[in-house]
């Protein structure tokens, strides 16, 4: 009796969802961030529903199985625009974005009401290494440091520390591809000593990101600059949303997301920027790390390069932009702070350009060489720059390293786009009313 009462109450909580992002799953993430009944959590331990958003490639099935089994009982799963594994029975699958929150709530309520069983474990119940029966107490270890106590070896000092003279144990692990502070799909093997990154090797590149369809159109024919610039600003705002969430500014991050949703030529960045500056985002957060030298900056391109002092911008070569008297703004330091200041400046600049371009009805003139928000796209689109992280991150403190990852837009751009989006998605991505070109 008492239990059913407890469960009834429990079903009314905000649904804690752990999102596993597949390809193009970040849209669902942004949609859910603004859904009142949903709480996105960072750890599967805190979740009641595992959401697989977007198609997860086969090479990430193993990590997905691991995360699936890390949710404590009772839990359930929901597959959004991806095919549930055949051996999972009665797994709901959702296609439409605006049905997603409702489906998540139903899943949680049914789970609490006992109308749906908790999802089964997929992996066999075995420790990572067999260990029973060895050692003094059957703990599996040998001597001081040897063996595999409780199924795992102990950490050893593998390499000298790169900052301090003391050499202590280093911890090596693989993080991702479903870690919320990483770009979707990225996995890295990291060695830490204390909380300092000793080595970093990116093992799985992040999923290629799809840009707004207007960028693909711009590769084919001239498009209104206003539309292009609004899409650019929106892209940057989406990145800002992730970074602010990571920095502990949840409310500001939602503001950034809302601004992106309702972006129009009359939008201004002023309020958000003031808020960030006043909150001390540029002074208190981890901002000093990840300095790019010119070579690295050229490799990654785009705003990150301009933040490091390179004034390359393909928009300079476009007659339409020249009419608007466009000139790129740059930062000099090339660190995380410079990148965010650059990003904010570029959003601001894009909004101004969009405003002017709308008034004068300016169109782009170049189609072969365009500047995407991710970087220049001439013969080839912006490519995956995640190997760059291997050089930039060693030596940084953990928080600094993750802030650096968030500030660098490393994912490649998918080569063909546009056609895959369904109407409801477009509405979400472009935020409905604001866009004058519809």
């Amino acid at each position, binding site marked *: 009796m008492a239990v059913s009462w*407890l469960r009834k109450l429990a079903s009314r909580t*905000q649904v804690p969802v752990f999102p596993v992002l597949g390809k193009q799953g970040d849209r669902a993430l942004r949609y859910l961030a603004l859904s009142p009944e949903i709480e996105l959590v960072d750890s599967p331990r805190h979740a009641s529903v595992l959401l697989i958003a977007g198609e997860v490639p086969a090479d990430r099935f193993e990590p997905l199985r691991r995360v699936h089994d890390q949710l404590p009982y009772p839990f359930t799963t929901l597959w959004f625009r991806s095919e549930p594994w055949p051996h999972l029975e009665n797994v709901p699958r959702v296609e439409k974005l605006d049905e997603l929150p409702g489906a998540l709530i139903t899943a949680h309520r049914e789970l609490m009401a006992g109308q749906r069983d908790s999802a089964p474990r997929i992996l066999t119940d075995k420790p990572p290494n067999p260990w029973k029966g060895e050692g003094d107490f059957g703990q599996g270890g040998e001597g001081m440091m040897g063996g595999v106590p409780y199924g*795992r070896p102990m950490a050893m000092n593998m390499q000298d520390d790169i900052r301090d003279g003391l050499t202590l144990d280093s911890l090596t692990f693989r993080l991702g591809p479903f*870690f919320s502070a990483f770009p979707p799909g990225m996995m890295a093997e990291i060695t830490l000593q204390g909380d300092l990154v000793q080595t970093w090797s990116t093992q799985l590149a992040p999923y290629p990101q799809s840009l707004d369809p207007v960028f693909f159109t711009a590769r084919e024919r001239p498009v209104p600059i206003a539309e292009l610039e609004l899409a650019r600003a929106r892209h940057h705002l989406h990145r800002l949303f992730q970074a602010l969430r990571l920095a502990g500014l949840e409310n500001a991050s939602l503001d950034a997301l809302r601004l992106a949703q309702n972006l129009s030529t009359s939008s201004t960045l002023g309020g958000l920027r003031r808020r960030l500056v006043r909150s001390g985002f540029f002074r208190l*957060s981890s901002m000093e790390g990840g300095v790019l030298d010119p070579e690295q900056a050229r490799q990654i391109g785009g705003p990150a390069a301009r933040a490091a002092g390179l004034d390359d911008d393909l928009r300079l070569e476009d007659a339409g932009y020249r009419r608007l008297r466009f000139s790129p703004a740059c930062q000099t330091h090339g660190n995380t702070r410079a990148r965010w200041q650059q990003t904010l400046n570029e959003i601001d600049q894009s909004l101004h350009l969009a405003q002017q371009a709308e008034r004068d009805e300016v169109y782009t003139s170049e189609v072969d060489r365009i500047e995407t928000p991710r970087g220049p796209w001439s013969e080839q689109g912006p490519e995956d720059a995640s190997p760059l992280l291997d050089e930039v991150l060693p030596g940084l403190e953990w928080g600094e390293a993750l802030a650096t990852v968030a500030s660098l837009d490393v994912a490649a751009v998918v080569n063909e786009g546009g056609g895959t989006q369904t109407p409801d998605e477009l509405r979400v991505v472009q935020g409905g009313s604001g866009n004058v070109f519809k």
Partner: protein
Amino acid sequence: MFLNELLLPVLMVTFMLTVGAYVVAVLDRLIAGAFGAPQAGSVWLAPMARGAWLMTQHANATEAPDWQAWRLAPALYLALAAIGLAVVPWSESLVATDLVTSVVLWGSVEALATVVIFLHGWSANALLPLIGGYRYVALGLSYILISMFVLIGVALPAESLQFTQVVASQEALWNVLRQPLGLPLFLIVGLGMTFWGPLNLADSADLAGGTASEISGPPRLVWDVARAAMLVAFSGVAASAFLGGWLGPWLPGPLWMAIKMLAVLLVLLLLGRLLPRIAPERCVTLMWVVLLPLSFLDLVWAGIGALL
């Protein structure tokens, strides 16, 4: 005697623990809503529903945790919050335990909180909680000196280490005006000891929940409640030390106390929503190089003020 000296204090503290934690949850939700977080359903019911869900969720385990320490840490944190609440005076006579050295006892609660939070991060035997625990120690060992200097500042005019005396000494002028640096510095300590908002180095987003990233179900409920209760205990201490505790016209003392505690809570929760998480290295430098000298200044100011 038994009734007055044992039962009443215990009831008072239990009441404050539960109601206080609930109020914190509701207030934080209201503030988040005011800043534009999407919200649905009743604000008043939400903390209960969440608690109920955590009670139905199974507790997680890791491969080889330090079981005793892992389960003890949330309970100990709650116990520390209870001790903090026990030394807060509600009126001249209504105080759960009126220890002669209650100001020092609160200092000890702060120091022991560091131990408990570290233990919580350590005992899971998982990487992200471990980093969270160690990060917190950097913060915990930095704020403790500031807190002590500031509290010694309020003990000077009271000539006592007892919170009832500290409140009584503010009859003429509250310490918040007499020692203007004190309360702001002390609020930072409060954010630190509950690792709230900008000082959430222990359970931060970049560690997927830090020391709490591996716990679920009832242990997580206790941990969250303890954290909220600690915030309440802190606001009680801050209200007694700087805002004149039960002193105030017209209304009865305990009511004044409740109002002042709410005010402190509100400020803390606002700060928690407005500021980004500070980088650990910058935090340590800031605490030792800027805030600690400021707390020296506060003490000297308090000393001169007490002599005049």
